[in-house]
């Protein structure tokens, strides 16, 4: 039997005006287990808490009920107070007689009656409370960042700056991601590389950051504070410790026909290559699919050329295992494939390009050295048509239902840059809506229209067809209510962006949520935007949803803060109100496992002793560090083997009983 103390707070007149606190205190003494009751003006004050503490010590209380404001306000306060004098904090329950009673009722009799009932329910619950001890688990003081784009780099830098180790795993040979491919950034028009590459160098140089480029995460196990990841380092065929990144090999390489990924395939690279001049880490890598040595066994020119003796044709993939306390997913995005958009003729016409391709064309390090030349005949285009919302906001199978968010702004940027550099060029932008919610965004767009004379046409393009060396663009001008036809030299498609294909695999690996568009789901859309629903897994950048660079960077830093907050702890205190499986009742049906959003339940074969009968049974086992205590499993379990500590079936039923009594 418990020895329960009931403490009724007046909250000044907030409670006392509508609830006869003395009456509640007197009624409490009639409840089973209650040995003491008291009322006080401000129970949360130091002296109010003192009252509670004294009673715990003097009356030997084993449970405490505080009838006061919402537990969301002061549950923690009173639990702490109880703990300070040796009572398990989970033996304290709050009856909310302010927000749920005194504030919403005017009649004192009514308010008092309800307060008594709420008190009773809390007492009934405490009678069944058990001391709960929060589990603790050690935190590995190292974070893993999956993806080395601007999101991953920023997160890693921020974590490293706080003094924790970070590993970046990037599947490409260099970090930098999409931002490295961009020419200029909106709305400031500063050079993308100029702001990104210093960060890349910082990351590489940071003693707390380790970059695993050309590597992929194969599997992750464990839980918050204690993950184990297997990372596969793909064979580069170049020894990283020896390669100086001089690039001589890439010049000598006789196989030069491979489309250059970095330039979106608009020019070619050698079989041994360095993705771009500012690559980090700057090591050459051999593409075995293109390399003559791998194809024919001959050649070996690079090996001979390399003074550092870095080339190693026999290198194998290597898998390493590392422990982490936290994981940040920053897998980024890709431009969607345009194979199914026949109307724009992207696959047939070299002069129909994506915006990302245009970025490369405009870039000084790009395939044309920065000159705006159309791909087919390398002439300067006189008329350029930009098409917005290609594959975004649609409902066809090839479309994405969401807005890709960045296209309006980068198209304005492109249009503006072209008009500035080549004032003789006519630029048309077909748009459905122009969306510019961002600092200085609308001003930027207006400048494109007003200052640079870009023709914005409200309407969509229906068809692009090759016509006498030009591209005939059929579009509609809805404001004119006309179909217009433009013979353009170049058509630029603002193709939708989608999460990188690795996101889905990684989400499954990390048991974190993913939405129908394969964007990873945040724990709460408003309040926990950079956390995933799985503890210890954080989201950074476009893997969570379309974002521009400033948003990505701020989210990256936010994710870093969450990671730092986690890694700063030596141990994590787990929520003790977690599910618990009664191994004698569990029949191994797996229903609970199916509803657990965190993958906290696993099934194990265990020998149990059922009243002397020993047998191996398949039973559910809850990882308390992973369980967040939602209770979904408890209802899925037909045998009642699964219960939730702190909110057990019997406790809740006791509350129900007390209320309905």
């Amino acid at each position, binding site marked *: 039997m418990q020895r329960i103390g009931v403490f009724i707070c007046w909250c000044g007149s907030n409670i006392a005006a509508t609830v006869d606190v003395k009456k509640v205190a007197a009624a409490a*003494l*009639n409840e*089973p287990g209650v040995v003491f009751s008291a009322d006080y003006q401000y129970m949360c004050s130091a002296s109010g808490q003192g009252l509670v503490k004294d009673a715990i010590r003097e009356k030997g209380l084993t449970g405490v009920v505080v009838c006061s404001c919402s537990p969301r306000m002061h549950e923690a306060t009173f639990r702490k107070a109880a703990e300070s004098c040796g009572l398990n904090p989970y033996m304290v329950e709050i009856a909310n007689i302010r927000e749920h009673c005194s504030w919403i009722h005017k009649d004192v009799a009514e308010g008092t009656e309800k307060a008594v009932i709420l008190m009773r329910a809390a007492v009934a619950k405490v009678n069944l409370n058990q001391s709960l001890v929060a589990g603790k688990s050690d935190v590995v003081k190292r974070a893993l960042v999956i993806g080395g784009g601007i999101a991953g780099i920023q997160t890693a830098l921020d974590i490293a700056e706080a003094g924790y180790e970070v590993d970046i795993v990037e599947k490409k040979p260099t970090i930098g991601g999409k931002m490295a491919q961009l020419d200029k950034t909106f709305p400031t028009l500063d050079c993308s590389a100029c702001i990104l590459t210093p960060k890349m160098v910082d990351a590489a140089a940071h003693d707390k950051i380790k970059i695993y480029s050309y590597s992929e995460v194969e599997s992750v196990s464990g839980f918050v504070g204690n993950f184990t990841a297997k990372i596969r380092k793909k064979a580069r065929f170049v020894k990283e410790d020896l390669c100086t990144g001089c690039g001589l090999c890439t010049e000598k390489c006789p196989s030069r026909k491979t489309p250059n990924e970095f330039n979106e395939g608009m020019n070619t690279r050698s079989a041994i290559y360095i993705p771009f001049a500012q690559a980090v880490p700057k090591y050459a890598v051999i593409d075995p699919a293109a390399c003559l040595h791998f194809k024919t066994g001959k050649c070996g020119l690079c090996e001979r050329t390399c003074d550092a003796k870095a080339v190693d044709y026999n290198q194998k993939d290597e898998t390493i295992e590392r422990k982490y306390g936290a994981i940040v997913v920053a897998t980024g995005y890709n431009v969607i494939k345009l194979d199914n958009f026949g109307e724009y003729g992207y696959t047939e016409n070299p002069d129909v390009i994506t915006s990302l391709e245009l970025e490369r064309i405009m870039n000084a390090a790009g395939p044309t050295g920065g000159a705006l030349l159309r791909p087919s005949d390398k002439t300067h285009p006189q008329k350029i048509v930009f098409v917005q919302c290609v594959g975004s906001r649609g409902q066809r199978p090839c479309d994405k239902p969401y807005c890709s968010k960045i296209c309006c702004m980068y198209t304005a940027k492109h249009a503006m840059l072209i008009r500035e550099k080549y004032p003789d060029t006519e630029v048309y932008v077909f748009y459905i809506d122009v969306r510019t919610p961002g600092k200085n965004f609308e001003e930027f767009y207006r400048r494109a229209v007003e200052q640079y004379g870009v023709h914005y046409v409200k309407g969509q393009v229906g068809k692009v067809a090759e016509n006498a060396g030009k591209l005939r663009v059929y579009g509609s001008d809805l404001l004119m209510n006309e179909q217009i036809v433009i013979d353009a030299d170049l058509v630029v498609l603002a193709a939708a962006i989608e999460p990188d294909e690795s996101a889905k695999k990684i989400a499954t690996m990390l048991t974190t949520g993913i939405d129908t568009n394969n964007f990873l789901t945040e724990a709460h859309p408003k309040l926990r935007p950079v956390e995933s629903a799985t503890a210890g897994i954080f989201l950074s950048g476009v893997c969570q949803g379309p974002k521009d660079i400033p948003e990505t960077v701020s989210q990256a830093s936010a994710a870093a803060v969450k990671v730092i907050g986690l890694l700063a702890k030596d141990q994590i205190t787990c929520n003790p109100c977690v599910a618990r499986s009664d191994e004698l009742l569990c029949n191994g049906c797996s229903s609970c496992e199916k509803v657990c959003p965190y993958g906290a339940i696993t099934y194990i074969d265990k020998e149990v002793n059922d*009243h*002397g*009968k020993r047998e191996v049974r398949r039973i559910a086992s809850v990882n308390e560090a992973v369980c967040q205590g939602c209770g979904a499993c408890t209802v899925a379990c037909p045998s009642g083997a699964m219960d939730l500590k702190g909110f057990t079936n019997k406790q809740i039923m006791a509350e129900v*009983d007390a209320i*309905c*009594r």
Partner: protein
Amino acid sequence: MLKIKKSNLDKLYAAISERQILYVPCNVAGKPNFAVWGEGADVDLVSLKTVKSAKEVFFPQCEDIASFRKEGKNISVKSEHKESGDFVVFGVRACDCKSFDILDSVFLADPVDTFYKTKREHGTVITLACSKPEETCFCSAFGIDNAEPEGDIATYFAGEYLYWSPKTEKGLNLTKTLNSLLQTATDKDNDALEKEQKKIKEITGRLPLYVLDLSYWEADDLLEKFNSEKWKALSESCIGCGACTFVCPTCQCYDVRDFDKGHGVQRYRCWDSCMYKDFTMMAHGTPRPTQMQRFRQRFMHKLVYHPSNHEGVFSCVGCGRCVEKCPMHINIVKVIKTFGGDDK
């Protein structure tokens, strides 16, 4: 011997009900069970067997025995025992009537079950001869005459009439109150009745279970029976439900349970079944952890333990309800035959 026209039975029920409660087999949702008679009740004296036996009238499935009342922090206890009012149970078959003797031997032996006793004292049993015995009946094996049932009053259907024969003082007292409805039977009636009884006997003689050799069970070799290998195969298909025990007229085990009403506690007893895993559950667990052990308990009790404690009387009246109701068709007949029959 008295008689009443079948078509006047409703009047008879009403007349009995005027003075005391009348239990009679009634159809509710398509199933006959003993129920308190009231105007418009669907009385069913045709169906041979009620689902639950007549024992329910004296030993209800649930019965309050005490209550605890909470006032502040004080608890007061009150017995729920009260004297029963007079009542009549009508339409009891010979086998069910015999089962009362078996229940008596348990409940009325020291210590006396006062709840049961008061009902037995105040209850008048009107039996009814079985006009149409069925294949599952084997009352004859226990020396029960289904054509000539016992009870305070025995009744018989023949032709247009129900014949009425008071057998005890209780029976005579009740009969007196019904004089206006009952006529005296003539010689012709007696002939008709005799003919009817003869017919019943003839059919009974043809029942497939008419001959059931119980001699094996009379032998005093408890341990041999207990340790027999045959239990395993017999019990294999038992699903451990309590259908047999709850329809059985002689099963008398009950559990005492408490129900928290919120403002007090109700202590009640309710039928229990030795087929259940938690039967006689104790702190260390159940004494009979396997279904075979529980199965064996039931039949050892009926055929060995009870007779050895009660002058050789088996705790079975051959009503055949278990034969009919077992979902898997396992029953006492199979047990009797397996041990004492051809398989031996």
